């Protein structure tokens, strides 16, 4: 589904990703862990097409296409979804309007007919129930005045509605209390399917108790320095990132 080879990316003059390799197949759940500043969020942003970052070299093949050559909205429409670490507020634009515009943009791309207001509302209401959002959030401005937990639920709601092929969750657990974390994780787990892959980016292993990954990668210094199964996350939890960073980097780049 997604194959990243030797990806180098920088912001301004500062290199952040320095030769990252990663391969994700349909149905897999990958977790990327790493210390602050290791490039986790940069990876998410580069994959989604954020312009602030410059790709210096490397390639990324997405569903047989050159991901890095695709415009932002084309990536989104083809099924790449990013759940933002800090969801953005758009004053004056109702959540309902925003969600409907997004759903229909994706549907048009897939050659499906656009949902009309009635069908859309029916659909969105049932999904909201599932992520535990009250209906009033449909009529409030996008993320404006939402609490941290409400914003993250709103991200999961969007993900559920857009039915992506690959969902990247960028520190979705940050700033959440345990109840909100569970709710969000439940929402994500419902979307797990053999056709859909997840890339879960997190600093703490806590989230991985709820969204259990198939593969865990440790990102440090802009490269994947270690890969393993679920147990790698637990080991990290116990020994800290210092263990990896000071350790040998023989496995660097040995992505799943």
């Amino acid at each position: 589904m997604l194959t990243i080879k030797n990806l180098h990316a920088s912001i301004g003059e500062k290199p952040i990703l320095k030769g990252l390799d990663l391969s994700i197949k349909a149905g897999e759940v990958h977790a990327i862990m790493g210390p602050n500043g290791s490039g986790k969020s940069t990876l998410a942003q580069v994959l989604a097409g954020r312009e602030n970052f410059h790709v210096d070299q490397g390639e990324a093949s997405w569903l047989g296409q050159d991901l890095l050559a695709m415009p932002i909205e084309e990536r989104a429409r083809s099924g790449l979804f990013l759940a933002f670490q800090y969801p953005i507020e758009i004053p004056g634009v109702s959540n309902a309007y925003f969600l409907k515009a997004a759903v229909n943009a994706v549907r048009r791309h897939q050659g499906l007919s656009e949902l009309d207001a009635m069908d859309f509302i029916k659909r969105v209401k049932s999904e909201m129930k599932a992520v535990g959002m009250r209906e009033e959030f449909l009529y409030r401005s996008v993320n404006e005045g939402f609490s941290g937990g409400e914003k993250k639920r709103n991200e999961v709601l969007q993900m559920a509605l857009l039915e992506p092929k690959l969902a990247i969750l960028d520190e979705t657990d940050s700033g959440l209390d345990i109840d909100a974390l569970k709710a969000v994780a439940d929402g994500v787990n419902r979307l797990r399917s053999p056709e859909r892959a997840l890339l879960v980016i997190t600093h703490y292993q806590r989230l991985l108790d709820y969204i259990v990954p198939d593969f865990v990668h440790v990102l440090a210094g802009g490269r994947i320095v270690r890969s393993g199964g679920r147990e790698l996350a637990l080991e990290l939890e116990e020994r800290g990132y210092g263990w990896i960073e000071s350790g040998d980097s023989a496995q660097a780049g040995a992505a799943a």
Partner: protein
Amino acid sequence: MSTATDKIDSYLGREYAPGFITEIESDTIPKGLSEDTIRLLSAKKNEPEFMLEWRLDAYRHWLTMPTPEWAKVDFPPVDFQDIIYYSAPKSKKDAPKSLDEVDPELLRTYEKLGVPLHERARLAGVAVDAVFDSVSVATTFRKQLAEVGVIFCSFSEAVKDHPDLVRKYLGSVVPPGDNFYAALNSAVFSDGSFVFIPKGVRCPMELSTYFRINAQDTGQFERTLIIAEEGASVSYLEGCTAPMRDENQLHAAVVELVALDDAKIKYSTVQNWYPGDKDGKGGIYNFVTKRGECRGARSRISWTQVETGSAITWKYPSVVLRGDDSVGEFYSVAVTNNYQQADTGSKMTHMGRNTRSTIISKGISAGRSSNVFRGLVRVTPKAEGARNYTQCDSLLIGKKCAAHTFPTIEAQNPSAQIEHEATTSRIGEDQLFYAMQRGLSAEDAVSMIVNGFCKEVFKELPMEFAVEAQNLLGVSLEGSIG
């Protein structure tokens, strides 16, 4: 990699759609301004003597006035001798009595502009007065309106057919010597719309005037007067366009509104004068005085404006709250792009007791444009219990534009409650990225964000025009990011 910037730049293709020129024979007087010009103009319009005297008084006063320079706009001095003060499409008769007599070329022009001059047209609930250069060429639905006592006609006709009303109210809100451009307008105004809603009548349809400047080197000086008697109400809308020309053209209008006891006037403007090209060449100078007076108790005047056009916009729709418990409102969206300059805002003068006013202004600047909000809230000593709320938000698109806010508050009564809020924000690249990551195109994302920003104002517009305003906004901001 395609970016939001590229996307929007490539979208620049669409042009100023109303920018075409109508080929029509005109009756035009020579350039220049003098007492003779005014006499000629007045004679052409067969005006009664009082009108000519009124004009000449205004002209003599105007000669003594200096050109105002306080606005934050920059343009070379206007040569008032280089302007044509009267240009009218030639017609077989003096004034067409019905639509059938209107030159088909003119009807086609309005059709092309999407203005319904056929009474069974799409916007059947709207009566239109069409002003072409210096004259009104058609007014629709007059018969239906007359049945309920509403007078809706061109200003020239009002001067002839309703001289008493004109004499009583003309200049009663904006006196001829009010300011430089109002004085000029009073001297040379050529046409405009006249609306009179008698006591207790709710005007059964939206009234609207569509101003079109066509002839080259011509200034448009129109005069609008709307009177709502006790308990009457009316909703009125004006629209404006002009061809694309390299020379600047002057538009100096005066609008006066009078609301008696319990009357309501809602005045909406969608201003789309030619703004000049992307290098700032050409465009309309829009120097307009708009003022309403809540003369009666519990009366209400509401201005809603969407300003997307003109090279320079200079106008401050105002309300004088003379009647007790009267209400004044101003809702504005002003968009500037490329080299446009807008200095706009509102004045609320509280004189009666328990008067209330609201000012909501949304300024959007893009390109190298400058967008100024100027507000004055004045509470006179006798205005017990006056309240004002002002909110003034600026949205910047790109890094070369400017937004300024100059609010002034003069409260001479200690019971006054005045609130002012102002914000300035930039269309976030993060907002764009967020929306595009959900599959929206860059242009849809910008339009969505801007419309969200303007929502409080758009909801004040009549339905049909809210949609038009949103579309207009989309066109005005094309190519604005980068």
